[in-house]
Structure formats: C-alpha cells, structure tokens
C-alpha cells in the first residue's frame, strides 16, 4: 500500500527515494556552504586568477595588461636573480633536508625509550614548533650577533673567532638553515615517534634472540620499517625548503649580496614591494611546478626504498 502510493503520486518523498544521494547532499549543503564558498572564493579563485595574472603586467593601480608569456620569458632569459633564487633554494635544501630528516630520527629513538621524565624532554623538543617563527627569528638574531651574541662568545672561549653569521654572505644561509633545523626537529621527532611506536616489539625481541646488536636492529628493523615516515618527512622538508620566507624576511631580507634571497621572498619583493603582481604570480607558478615535479619524482623513486608492511 505504501509502496503503491508513493510510486503513483509524485510527491517529495518519491523524489527523495529516487535520488537518495542527491537529497542527502542537499541536506548537507547548507552546513557545507561556508566552507565551499570559502574554498571557491579564497582558494580556487586566487589559484585561477594568479595563473591568469602570470600572463599580465599589473601594478594594482591600473588594470592588468595582457603580455602573454612575457613574464616567463623575462624570468628565464633576462633575470639573473631568478637563477640566484634557484641556486639558493638548492643550497638550502641540501643543507636543510639531511638535518631535518636524520637528526629528528635519532632524537625520536632516544625519546622512544621508557625513561623517567621522557615526556618532559619530548615537550622541550617540541617547544620551538609551537613558537612563532617571528619570535624565534628575533631571538636567533641576538644569538647570531657577531659582537655580542652568545654563539660567538662561546666560540671565543674555545679560541675560535666566530663568523659574522647572518651579516656575512658565506655564513648567512647556513645560519638560516641551522635555525630552521632547530625549529623543525620537534615536529619531525613527533612524527617519527608515531612511526616508531607502530613497529611491533616482537621484531626487536626476535632479533635480540638471534644475537643482533642494537645498531644492527636499528639499521635492519627500525630504518626499513620506518621508511614510510621518512618518506613523508622527506617530501614535507623539501617542499618546506622551497618555500622559506619568514627566516629571510626577518633576519636578512634576502641579503647580504643576495646570499639568502629565497624564491618565496623574491615573490614577495616583486609582488608586494615593487608591485609587479604579474611577475610575482608567474614566479609562484614556476615554484608550484618545481614542487610538483620534485614530489612526483620522489613518489616514483620511493618504490625502491620505502617498505610498507
């Protein structure tokens, strides 16, 4: 009877029944709307707009002027600084990624033991992560001060004349990397900790019975079984290296002598200090493509060294 009525009378109920997915979706829509609008207006919109802007010349004050591939052409063939930023990005990545991948692993292994007060130490290592980069950078600015900073003071006590750190073209980039590694250790450590705790205890017990040393266990069990975590940290670290902004914005403004001019800072300079919005947008897309390619390559290569059990 019920079935009969609903099939004959085309009321709202039948519509609901015929398209159950759609009706659920419509019910959810009002709740999702704020996020959806936010996504279209603040994420998808700008993504599309900045792609189009990359083909224009725009100073914010007058309407954008279409120049086709002009920005990309100027960037690749006429802007030595663009290549400087790429070189700097490569240098930063080579210094930063080993530090951000290896150091936290060792600390995570240390923090994974059942020791008194281990939660306290974990919190201490995590502290830099929850501190704003601006505050961190200002503190490091003092640490790095060549005349009065504690780092050079300590070096002097052991008879070494410390470098000028962020004021020196040779040492500025290593100094930024040192600060960034220090800041990221806690975060990567927590991820490693989660990975380490996913390795069954039995593997280590069996290995110990077979006579494997702690080092052997570390290299033969921990490293392979934690490789998915390592892979994740590697990807995030490389992406992070290519997007360095605050460190150079606060500490060095890209100097001295362009030694710390990163791509993100260069984009900021071009777009928001010099008002070359089109050029800035084009640069952003080049950065996007570089990150995309590097990440795709890593996903290809991971099959050779990442083990999922």
């Amino acid at each position, binding site marked *: 009877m019920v079935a009969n009525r609903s099939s004959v009378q085309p009321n709202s109920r039948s519509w609901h029944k015929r398209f159950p997915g759609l009706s659920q979706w419509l019910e959810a829509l009002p709740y999702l709307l704020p996020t959806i609008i936010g996504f279209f207006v603040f994420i998808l919109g700008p993504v599309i707009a900045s792609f189009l802007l990359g083909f224009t010349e725009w100073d914010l004050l007058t309407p954008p002027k279409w120049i086709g591939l002009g920005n990309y052409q100027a960037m690749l063939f006429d802007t030595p600084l663009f290549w400087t930023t790429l070189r700097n990005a490569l240098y930063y990545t080579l210094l930063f990624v080993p530090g951000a991948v290896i150091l936290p692993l060792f600390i995570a292994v240390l923090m994974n033991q059942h020791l008194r007060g281990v939660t306290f130490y974990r919190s201490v290592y995590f502290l830099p992560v929850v501190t704003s980069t601006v505050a961190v950078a200002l503190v490091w600015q003092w640490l790095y001060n060549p005349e009065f900073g504690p780092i050079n003071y300590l070096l002097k006590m052991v008879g070494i004349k410390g470098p000028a750190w962020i004021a020196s073209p040779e040492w500025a980039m290593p100094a930024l990397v040192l600060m960034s590694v220090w800041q990221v250790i806690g975060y990567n450590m927590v991820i490693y900790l989660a990975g380490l705790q996913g390795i069954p205890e039995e593997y280590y017990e069996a290995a110990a019975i077979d006579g494997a040393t702690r080092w052997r266990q570390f290299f033969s069990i921990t490293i392979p079984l934690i490789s998915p975590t390592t892979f994740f940290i590697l990807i995030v670290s490389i992406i992070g290296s290519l997007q360095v902004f605050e460190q150079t914005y606060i500490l060095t403004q890209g100097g001295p002598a362009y030694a710390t001019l990163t791509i993100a800072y260069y984009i900021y300079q071009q777009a928001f200090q010099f008002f070359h919005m089109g050029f800035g947008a084009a640069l*952003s897309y080049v950065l996007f493509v570089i990150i995309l390619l590097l990440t795709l390559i890593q996903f290809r290569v991971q099959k050779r060294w990442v083990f999922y059990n």
Partner: protein
Amino acid sequence: MTVKQYLRWGRFRHWHVLGGAVLLAMLLAACVASAPGGQGSASSGGATTIKLMCWEGALGTKDLVTNDLIPGFEKANPGIKVEYEVLPWDQFWTKIATLAASGTMPDIYCNSVAYIWDHANKNISADIQSLFDRDLKPDDYFMQLTDVERYPDNKGDLYGFPFRWVDGALFFNKDLFDAAGLKYPDDSWTYDDVLAAAQKLTKDTDGDGQPDQWGLVAGMDHIMLDSIIKSNGGQVVDDSYSKCMLTEPTALAAIQWVTDLVQKEKVSPSPTVAQGFAQGIFPSGKVAMQINGSYQTAPYKDITAFKWDVSWQPKGTQGRVVYGGPDSLSISKNTKNLDAAWAFMKYMVNPDIQKRGDLIGLGSIPILKSAAFSDDWLKAAGQPEHAKVFADSGDFVKGADFGSQWIEWRATIMNNELNQALLGQRSADDSAAAACKAIDDVLVKIDKPKK
C-alpha cells in the same frame, strides 16, 4: 599532513593577500572604470567626516595623533571630523593600491617620496597647486623640498605637500675627536677632509693588528653615495629618468672612493662588521663619523656613553649637495571632501603645529621656515647642539631621484649590487656595471608621464 601543509602556506599569508587583492581588484576594476569621479564638497548640513590614513611613525605616535593632533584640528575646524587609520609601512602601500583600485581611497593620506610620482601619474592623488596658490605663501616654506611633489618632472603642479622633511648630515663623536686632538668638522669640510680625519681616527685599540675604532662608516645608500656623486658633478640616473649613469667616470669615481674606505684605506668597518652592532655602529662609540639622515637624532638622543654633534654634509669638487626628502600628505583625486581635506593639510603646516618638537620629531625639520629656525624646535630636548645645520642645509638640498619604482631600482637593486663592492666580492667597476644593467631593466619599463 594537511594541517602542516596548510600552516606552511598559511603562514606566508601574502598568498591570501594576493588572492584577495586579485579578486577584489578584478571585480572592482570594472566598476571603478565606469564610476564618475565625483569631486567637490559633500558637507551638506551636518558634520563632514574625512578619512586620514598613514603608516606607523609617519605622523607621530597613534596616541599623539588621536588625542592631540586630531582633536586640535576638529576644534579649530568645527563641522569636520577626522577618522584616522594607521598601518605598518609594509602593508600600507598594498592597502592604498587596493583602495585605489576599488575607488575607496581615504580623503587624505601620508605619501612617500617613493610613490608621489606614481600616484600623480595614475590619477590617485589630486593636484593641489591652485589651493596652495590661493591660501599659502611659498616664501614661508622650504619650497625646494616640494620639487619631488611636482608632476611630471619636478617642475609641474603639486600633488602633495610636506609637513616636515629630513636631510643628510655628518654625525660625529666628539669624544673621539677630542681624544685624537682633532678639530670638529665644520662647513668648510670636503670629502677629502673627511677622509684625512678618518685616517687619524682609525685605531687598533686592543693591539690585535685589526682596527676596532674607525673614522667613518662607508655606505652605498642614497644619503651618502648619491650626495657624493652629485657634489662632484655626476648623476645617478639621467635627466629623463630612463638610464643609469653610474658607469660614467664621476659616479664611478665616487663608488670607488666609498669602496676604498673599506677595502683600501680601511678607515671604515665592512658592512659585515657594521651590521653586527644591533643598535647601529655609531651608538656603539666605535666610529667617529657617519653621514646619515637627520632623523637619526631620534634614536641617537639616548646615547649616554659619549657626546656627539652634527655638522654639514661635506662639499664635493662642484660644491655642496645635501640629501633631502619630505614627508608629505596627499589628497585623493576622488575625494568628495576636498575642502575639508585641504583644511587638514593647512592645519599641519600652521605655526602652532610646526614648532612642536614632539609632533614634528627630533631631526625631522618643520616645512615652515619660521618654525625650523625657532628655538621651540632647534632647542627641543634631545636635539644636537648644532641642529640649526639641519635647517640651514635646506639651501643645498637635492632629492634622491625619487620617481617611479625608486624602492626597486635605488633602495633595493643599487644597494645590493654596490654593497658587493663594499664586501670585497668584486670591484667597484664590476658592481657599477651590474647595477646599471639591472637598473636599466627597471627604468625601461617605467610608465611615461600621462600628460
């Protein structure tokens, strides 16, 4: 993972600003283009409210502006209310550009020498020449400072008016001069005299074979280098603002001279060493002389370790050229409250405001001559003994080729390229050549005047 990535992108919040600005401007560009540019007073009946926008520090502390400056104006001009908004320098110009694109500019705003030309060229600021001619007398003001407010070629009409200005001066450490038994710098000094004194004032006080007290600070900034170039008869860019002139012999010699201060004469610390002093190297007491902006008086007034004073920016082979630049107010082209905005501009240059040291600031010079030479300003607490040099230097002031993209080609590119000579990374010649190549790339793309 997603949270972390979001944070990484989110922390670089300018991505969002870029996105927001893009959308906003694209939506509004069309509307603005067709909207009529209404001008004239809209003070029909009730109170007129004008909106004033400045960057932090342009007009004094926010407290002083909202509790003193603006109430004073509102009292003197019944029927006009002022709404004040202040932003950090970095955000100010992006916001102004966005407001201009959306047709919602403040009625009156603080304008910088770096942007006055662009704002006139792009119809953002109003021509106030006729208002000036009607109400104010040129003889009362340091009019040479208003050249950079004139569009299109420093000779046209006024697109802003200064309420104060700053210039270059030779700051010197009296204690170090006394210790070396040297005469203080005076108005006869040339750059050669400065170098000769610097050689006598550079010392190795701790006996490690390296100087740790220097005679002078070398800088490739516009206050020091550009003044040396011009006082020797050279140019930084040509008269049409389209070509870099740094590779010409006179300019090149000046760049070489500044480079030699560090690399050959060793009377100046390298930028690497100088930057190590967090409060600046002059306050550290380790240098005897520094050519810098008069506005350094404000931070330097706190120096207690030694006595210091100021003297004239030295003479070159072709006479004296002192750097000078105004801090200005501009009125928006599309304001509906032109009269009220102009009333505020006049208020800022009236004697009661101009002679107040707390409003105009130490080392910032009143644009009103009578105030600049009054004891109220000259003897304000914290001024150096010879603060009158700041005001007297007005006769020798030249701007620093302010114009479109000045922040890009001068304050960024030229500094960065020439600093490599100071750092000893390459020769002065190579640095000048590299600077010119990069500067020409910027200048060639600059908009030409619209009229």
